């Protein structure tokens, strides 16, 4: 039988460049639309968003030299009430002269401001803070934001305060919370460099995972990961319960 070349199905053709399955700081590929879910009683969401944005902008290095483009920070009224406004003296030093803040009254206005900001070429990135799960921020709205960001190549980090992870088209979705900070060098009793526990729970390009991240003078670092718990045989604590229907042996084998 003569050899017959079989055309490979498109599904079998691998993409030209495989993205790294495991996320790490400083990747060359950065998503255009990320969501960070964080509790409203801490600033870990905004901190992680700033850290990720700084990491993305430095690792992409779209503008060689100093980036003078502005950074847009949009908050809705509920987010301002819960988490306050950005404090200039507490911002990263390179951001202090480049920040433009928008206080939107409603989630609809907030989405409008985000979209307009993504369309603007003078912004290095857009950071949004929105509280809760407003009706306006549905899947359609988030898809709109994703498409706008990808078309105009302006990156968006949307911090969702006290929100349930509902439907969204964000390319990377993080769950962030504060973690005990590293000890300060000169005063062990004082809070040190901020550290967050970040869980990447939905991503297109990367496998989900958890990291302990720290922002040390504008550089995003991964802390030594916690030791994986030793694999132990599952402990059947319900062994003693009365068996109903099936025998204890089947239960144990399953």
């Amino acid at each position: 039988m003569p050899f017959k070349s079989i055309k490979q199905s498109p599904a079998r053709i691998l993409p030209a460049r495989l993205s790294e399955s495991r996320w790490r700081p400083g990747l060359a590929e950065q998503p255009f639309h990320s969501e960070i879910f964080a509790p409203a009683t801490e600033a870990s969401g905004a901190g992680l968003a700033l850290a990720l944005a700084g990491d993305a902008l430095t690792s992409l290095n779209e503008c060689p030299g100093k980036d003078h483009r502005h950074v847009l920070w949009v908050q809705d009224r509920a987010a301002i009430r819960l988490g306050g406004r950005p404090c200039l003296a507490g911002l990263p030093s390179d951001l202090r002269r480049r920040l433009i803040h928008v206080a939107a009254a409603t989630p609809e206005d907030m989405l409008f401001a985000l979209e307009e900001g993504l369309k603007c070429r003078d912004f290095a990135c857009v950071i949004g803070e929105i509280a809760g799960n407003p009706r306006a921020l549905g899947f359609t709205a988030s898809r709109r934001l994703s498409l706008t960001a990808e078309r105009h190549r302006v990156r968006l980090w949307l911090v969702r305060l006290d929100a349930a992870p509902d439907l969204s088209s964000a390319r990377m979705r993080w769950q962030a919370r504060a973690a005990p900070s590293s000890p300060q060098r000169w005063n062990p009793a004082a809070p040190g460099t901020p550290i967050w526990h970040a869980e990447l729970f939905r991503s297109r390009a990367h496998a989900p995972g958890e990291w302990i991240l720290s922002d040390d003078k504008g550089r995003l670092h991964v802390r030594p990961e916690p030791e994986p718990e030793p694999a132990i045989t599952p402990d059947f604590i319900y062994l003693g319960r009365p068996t109903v229907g099936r025998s204890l042996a089947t239960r144990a084998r399953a």
Partner: protein
Amino acid sequence: MLLADARALCPQLDAVPADPAGDLAFLEKLALWAQRWGPWSALDPPDGLLVDITGVAHLFGGEEHLLRDVASAFTARGLTVRAALAPTAGAAWALAHYGPPAAILAPENDPLRQLGDLPVAALRLDDDVLTVLHRLGIKRLNELAGVSGAGQNDPRKEAAARDALRRRFRNHRSPAAHPLLRLDQLLGRVPEPLLPVIAQVMPLVQRRLMEPIRHRDLLDRVLEDLTLDMVRELEARGHGARRLEMALWRVDGEVLWRRIELAAATREASHITRLFAARLDDVEAGFGIEAVQLRASWTESLALSQADLDAAAQQHGTSLAAFVDRLSVRLGPKAITRPVLRASHVPERAQGWQPPLDPLPLQQDALPFHTRPLKLLDRAEPIAVLYASPDGYPQRFRWRGQVREVVRVEGPERLAPEWWRERSTARLRDYYRIEDDGGRRYWIYRQGIAGDGRGGVPDWFLHGLYA
């Protein structure tokens, strides 16, 4: 007489089908060509041309030389011509049609004297008017002039004579039906506007190819380039194409034509390319195509529009000013701000908000050893301290309904009230940076100290959130 009858009479008759449209087109071309003798030329269908040679004749060495030049140029092209030269178009027409060959009416000559012997048909009148004049017995121009009193010295007599003739033709408005009007035009008493012929250069772009192309994708590329060139050409004129013709020269000399017509004047390259691509499917390239030409044989004016303003914004993004404008319209002018440092050490006054495009004031950077929170609450929220350590800072407090255990603390950082701004009863603040058991970092302060004489037991507030 029918052609069949004529052929029966004279079998050698050479019959050529009439082509009025072709004749007119030829006359138009001839009128343009005739602009070599003067800047303006007008058609006189079916077989005449009028050229304005005012102030031009000396370039040809005088009027006689000009007429000789005209005659030789036409003869060289195999055309028979009768040319005449006069101060008015009507007089020139009359001389050319009914006068002697190469007649010249100089401006100083009396036109009636030179033209008086010409028949009234020299006035470019309609046939029925000519019949009427014949019936009236007016056959020559000077007879008509005599009736109209043109040569009369007495203006009253002249007016009376004209009046009679005018009443005879009072219902005739067009100059071709009004002998008096025509006579006045001939004599130069009434202006006669002419409609000049102006050359419209057809937008034409072409590509000569180094190597004859035989493949469709290359032809598509050439077509794209040509279309872009054509669009640029049309844009420069403010026109849009209604009809486009594409000519493909093959190596063997064959020319293939493809033509599209458009519903509305258009200047869209992609649209034109798509339309032509559908017409290029049956092109036989043969040994190859060596030249491609695209021309817009019918264009209409299409104003330069800003319809793609949004499209440009789609591609290149908006500017910061446009962004500010759009947001200010919807959210109000105060919604969009940028933070600036103010000269104060009290945290809520150390930062102001100003319009985003205003220039930043000169400011001193914050002191690096002042670790400030990432976010500052608009109003410091009171916290209930459940247990304070002997050092003064809270060990356990409740904020927003949750009890937090303080693990690490740094402080206090004492901020005195601004006596130049605040009342004398304002209390100082002792700020602490704290971290609770979950790693959440806050900025809290105690307002006042016990025994400062400005109130009772000091209250605790939470003012900022660290990253």
